[in-house]
Every structure is written in C-alpha cells, then in structure tokens.
C-alpha cells in the first residue's frame, strides 16, 4: 500500500499507460535506424526537452514561493538573438561561431532572468506581476530583434542541438538530461536546496537565520532565465528559424503544471526535481498520444484538460479518501 501513497505514483502510472497506448498505436515505438534510435518514444523524449528545461527553472522559482511567467518570452528572445547573429555569419556552418552565438544568446537570457530577479528580490514586486512585465515586453523585444520578420537560418551545427544525435540518442534529450543532473547535484549535493526550501518556507525567518534571501531569490530567476534561453535555442534550432510569436507560447503554463504534478506546492518550500521531470515528460507524452490515438484536433485541448483534472484529483489525498475510502478498511489518521 505504501507505493500507492507515494504522491508520484499516479503521475508515473499515467505516464506508463500513455507510453503503452503509444506503443500500440504508433507503427514504431523504438527502432534503430542509421545507428540512431527512432520511434515515438524517442520523439517524446526529444520533444520534451524544452519543457523539461523550462520546468526545471520553474521548480526552483516556485520553491522560493515565486513564479516566472516570462519563460516563453525569454525563449523567443534567445531564439531571435541566435538566429539574427547566425544569419549574419559568412559561413553558417562554422562550429566555433555558432557555439559563440549560443553562449551570447544564453547570456542574454541570464540577463533577462537577472531583470526578473532584481524586480522581485530588490524592488520587491510580487513575482507574478514582475515576470508579467517581461512576459509581455519580451515578445516585443524579440520582434524588435528580428525586425518583425521570421528569420530563417541554414546552419548545420545549430540544427544539431535540436535534431542531432550523439551516441544514438537525440542531442536535445542529452542536453535536458545534463541539465537535470546539474540541477540535482547543485541542489542536493550542496546546501542550495535546503536554503531554497527555507526561503520558500518563510523568507522572514530565513533572513533572521542569516540566509541572504535576496541573493538566493535573484539567483533562481537567473537560472530560470538561462534554462528558458536554452529551451528557446532548441525550439528555434528545431524549426531552423526564429519565430517570435509562437516560440514558447503558453509554455509557462505547461511548466507550472509540470511542477505541480511533480508535487512541488505553489506556495513554495519543498520541491522535487524528479517529480518535475516526470510531470514534463508526462505532459509531452500526453500531447503526442492525443494525436496518435486520433483525437480530432479541435478536441485535443479539451481531452488534455480532462486528463490533467483526473491527474490532479488522483493526487489529492482528500479526494482519494472520499472516492476510495469507503471501499477500503484502512483509514488515514490525522496526526496532531
């Protein structure tokens, strides 16, 4: 019974179910072609990379009791910066130049995160408002960078970060894995995780315990900006262009959902990296499956909503008690 009580049991079960459905409906689940892995499972893993990255940053922000609505706009900005600079290159296939441009685009994203962090931690604006500013303004900035056009690029090295393979696995997937490992080490092998949870739990108490809450709060927004930028690069490399309008559109909501599915409370405090990753992959798998099983396109959003509601209910202890409580003899005991 203990496994059923784990809050990640139901999301994990639903993910497995979705993957099984996928395995039956798609003609190829996992196969090897040209020495690479292919199939719908690989598509899901590759496609979930941007969301995993954005949700990782979002997890840290939410752990401090904040929220970052600007991630989609930061994605658009970083894609715009990268594509503009690449399109100006004499040789778009120069690996060195492309790498440098990636670094520049991420630096710009970090700066965007710093702006958010400064508004929240130094000026003291509520996170939802502070990041709303960049959410709205960010797309404008991205359009200014691209002069209102969609900039197309023909760069092999740039496309690699989205569609390339390394050791038979998609590069985008590997980037996401690296980010997850990095953040896990950073938060659990150092004291960063504890300090984050403490600031999220009570900023005032944390300050009086000698924690420099402002610094930590600023930092999580910077990290969130950086990951959003990286996600924006993967997105734009995938379509080989900078599309300031649809890049990362509404991804902030999926990311917040992934964090919540993963068991991190929106009020801050305890957070779970593993839960977030599970949530992000689940959302991506849901999107893919909806198409694969042939739900009509006009009904996909509604279908997705139904699954999400079911999932959230399944995670609510009070709801489970109400529905299943009368069938089982085990009672949940309140603890004083």
């Amino acid at each position, binding site marked *: 019974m203990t496994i059923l009580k784990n809050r990640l049991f139901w999301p994990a079960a639903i993910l497995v179910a979705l993957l099984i459905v996928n395995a039956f409906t798609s003609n190829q689940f996992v196969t090897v072609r040209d020495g690479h892995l292919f199939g719908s499972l690989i598509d899901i893993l590759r496609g979930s990379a941007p969301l995993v990255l954005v949700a990782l940053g979002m997890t840290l922000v939410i752990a401090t009791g904040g929220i970052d609505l600007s991630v989609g706009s930061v994605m658009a900005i970083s894609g715009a910066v990268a594509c503009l600079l690449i399109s100006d290159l004499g040789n778009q296939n120069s690996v060195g130049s492309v790498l440098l441009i990636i670094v520049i685009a991420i630096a710009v994203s970090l700066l965007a995160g710093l702006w958010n962090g400064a508004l929240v931690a130094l000026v003291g604006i509520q996170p939802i408002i502070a990041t709303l500013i960049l959410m709205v303004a960010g797309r404008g900035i991205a359009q200014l960078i691209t002069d209102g056009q969609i900039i197309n690029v023909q760069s092999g090295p740039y496309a690699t970060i989205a569609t390339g393979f390394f050791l038979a696995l998609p590069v985008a997937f590997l980037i996401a894995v690296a980010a997850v490992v990095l953040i896990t080490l950073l938060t659990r092998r*150092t*004291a960063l995780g504890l300090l984050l*949870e403490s600031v999220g739990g009570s900023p005032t108490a944390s300050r*009086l*315990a*000698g924690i420099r809450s402002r610094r930590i709060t600023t930092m999580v927004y910077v990290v969130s900006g950086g990951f959003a930028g990286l996600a924006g690069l993967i997105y734009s490399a995938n379509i080989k262009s900078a599309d300031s309008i649809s890049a990362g559109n509404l991804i902030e909501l999926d990311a917040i959902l992934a964090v919540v599915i993963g068991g991190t409370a929106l009020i801050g*405090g305890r957070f779970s990296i593993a839960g977030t990753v599970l949530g992000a992959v689940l959302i991506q798998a849901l999107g893919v499956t909806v198409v694969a099983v042939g739900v009509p396109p006009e009904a996909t959003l509604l279908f997705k909503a139904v699954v999400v509601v079911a999932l959230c209910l399944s995670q609510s202890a009070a709801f489970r008690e109400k529905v299943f409580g009368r069938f089982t003899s085990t009672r949940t005991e309140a603890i004083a």
Partner: protein
Amino acid sequence: MGEQSLVLEMTGIRKVFPGVVALDGVDFRLFPGEVHALMGENGAGKSTLIKVLTGVYTIDGGEVRLGGEVVHINGPLQAQQAGISTVYQEVNLCTNLSVAENIFIGREPRKFGRIQWGLMRRRASELLARLDLDIDVSAPLNTYSLAIQQMVAIARAVDISARVLILDEPTSSLDTSEVAQLFAVIRRLKADGVAILFVSHFLDQIYEVSDRLTVLRNGQLIGEFKTEELPQVRLVEKMIGKELAALESLEDKAQRTREKVAEAEPILQAKELGRTGAIAPFNLTIHAGEVVGLAGLLGSGRTELARLLFGADKPDSGELLLEGKQVNLRDPQVAMKRGIAFSSENRRTEGIIGELSVRENIILAMQASRGWTRPIPRRKQDEIVEKYIKALQIRPADPERPVRNLSGGNQQKVLLARWLITEPRLLIIDEPTRGIDVGAKAEIQKLVAELSDGGMAVLFVSAELEEVLRLSHKIEVLRDRRLVEELENTSDVDADRIMQTIASGATS
C-alpha cells in the same frame, strides 16, 4: 452549580494516534456560568481534547454529553450547531474586512438576496455593546488592537452559539491592560450563564479568572480541582509530575556570579544607538557571561532594541562596538559571523521553518553562515542534531519530523539549538518562554543560566518580570520606545520596583 445543571460532560474520552495515546480515559465537565481552566504541559492532551470538542477529531472511546444527551460531533459546523464555539490563540478573522462583516461573515442578514448593511452594523454594535465595547463597526478590523480583535472574535463566537465557549490561549499576545479588558468580558459572559473553557499558560491569569480546573498529564486525567483550593505550587507539581526544585535553585544564581561579570571585558557596547520610530537612542553595555534582561510592556521597544543589535533592522543614529571595534551590522549574517545570535519573539513566522525537519531547522543558521557551497556533511549534521536533541530534551526525539508538528516549547528548543550550535558570544532571545508550558519554561531558564555561567552573554527579553528578575544580572527598563533605567539586579530590586519605573517612567 448543582450536578443536574451540567451543560457538558465528557467521560472516558480516548483518542489514539499512530504510536501515541493522546487521551486515555479523560473526564471533563462544564457547568453553565463557570470558567473552567484546562491545565497541562504541552503534549498533555489539552489541544486534543479541545479538538475533540470542536469536532476536528473523532473519539476512539468514551462519550460526550451536551445538556444530558449523548452527541457525536463530527465536524466544526456540527460543534457550532450544538452550541460550542472556539476562539483560538491567533485571531482567525479577516483583518481587512470591517468589524461588522467579521461578526456576520457567512450569515449576513439578507433580504431578497441583498445584504442589509444597516441592520448588520446595528446588530454588530449591539453585540459589542453587550461586551462593553463601543467601537466603529464599519472600520476595518486591522485598525484595532489585538485585544479588540480578540473580543470581536468572542462576540462572533458568542453570537453564533452561546452555550459553551472555548478560549484557547486568548491572552498570549495581549498586554496587561488588554488582558484586564478581556477578563471583564469573560466575567460578563459568565454572568450570562455561558460555560467557558479557558486555556492559558499564565498561571496568574488562571487564578484570577477561573473557578475550577482540570489537570491533564501525558494524556491522562490527573484530577479536577476548585481553583481557590489548589495553591499554585501544587498545581505546577501536578502538571509536571515532579517537585519544582529545579526552578528554586535558580533563584540565587544571578547574585552569585555578578562580581565576576563586572570584571569581564565588554562584548557589546551601544552608544546612542537608535532608530527613528522604533527606539530612541540608547546606551548599553553587555559583558561576557552577563545576562541582561529587557523589561517593559508590549510595544515599549524591547524587540526593536534587540533587532538593532542583530542587524535585523538598521540603526539611523549612534554606533555599535563589538569587543571595542566599531561595526556596521548590514544584515543578520554579518551579525552572526561576529558571534551574535537572535531568536525572535515570533516563533512561528520569524523562527521556525515549519515544513522543514527538526534537523534542517537546527543546522539552518550554521549552514547559512558557511554559505551554500559548503554543505555540512550529513554525518556531522546527524551528530550535532542528536547531541542537541538529547541536551535540550527535544520531544519527540525524531530529527526528521517536520518541526511544525512539534509543540511550542519544543519548537523553541529547536530554535535555541539552531543558535547554540553557532557558538555565539552574545545570545539575544526575545520571549523564549512565551506560550510554552511550565516544565519547558524552567528548562529554558536553567539553560540560560548555564550558558551565562559558561561565559556567554545573554540579552534576555521577556514580558514576564518574574522571569527577568530570576535570570538577569542587570535589567534595562523600557517605556514608550525609550530605555528609561538600568538596574543592577540586587536583592532589593523586585517586580514592584520595576513596575514603578514602567508606570512612572522616572529615572530615579
């Protein structure tokens, strides 16, 4: 008060939590028009019993009779319908709404679906007038003092159902005059025939207002007594189950070490340090091994003074010297690195991080001063935490339990542990014994005395004069955000002497 008029009778109440018997065969009865105090240390079962009465918990054994009939209370709403209302320690009202709205929220007088504001205000005024309270009921609640808010909560509770009123620590954030005001209200309700269950950690208040008391210890009924027939010392003994020798041996400790202290080097010197609107410029010197008590009423500037010495607030005048060197405490971390520790009076909002475990709460300050890149190795954490759980007798002794599940006294010990492991030279503790039981209180007082014997300087802030007198070598008296007098705690200084200064403000 004949037996036939019992309004509430609980017999053989049993409540079991996994691994703990919280209540074991407890009886409790209430007569109309009496104030009945429920006494016991933290964890004795007081809260559980109240939660049984208010329908938060269902009982595993025994029966509850209201007006002679057996009732099963299955939720707060049912409790209200049965005539049981509760006012909790923290005012559970919406402070941004008006007084009238707060009294009638959820049951506004309506006509054709519209709220009748005029009627509502009129009825609210009438209700408060019954409690001798004449205030503007259309003003937001937060424009009034905590005491008034408390009374508004009582007015609401009484109006909803007036048979049994439970007051759970209603006085813990009130000052003396506000307590008097509250007690006047309690007496009036008593005269109206309301049965009142009263919980407080202040023994003096219990003796002032209650007619009868029931003592619990470790979930068991110790007995029911008439308040006037049970001396305070005997009551305390019944609550903690042992003699009060520990407390009494403290009495002369302060006298014993005073000579030694005067010779020690000053650790901290404040010269004309002040902050506009918080505390007028003051001078203060604290020596190693010295306990300095801050006495004064609520809002007299005690906390404000303490916060300046920790860098929690920035001074705007004067200077601060630590071991002779001038320092600028920009933020708490700077103060910490210089060997100052500060435990806030607001345990729940400025002290513990409720969601984190006991272990994490204890190591928090030490970790903060090391920075996030240098985590304390887990084995060392466990070692430290185990040592302090044992030394301070933190219960339950489970380092991984979320600290919010601990009782107030144990949370306070966790906070003390948090600061003691940083090995401070000056420990500032603001109201460390507020809202905690007698046993834990004595332990904390003993600890403070031991720390000062060991050479640590302590700035001890408390609203309880007895406590300040018992522990301090030197007492700083505050009044109206001003340090008005410094008293050597010699044998001729007593509570009356301090009260005089507080009352008159004279610097004689």
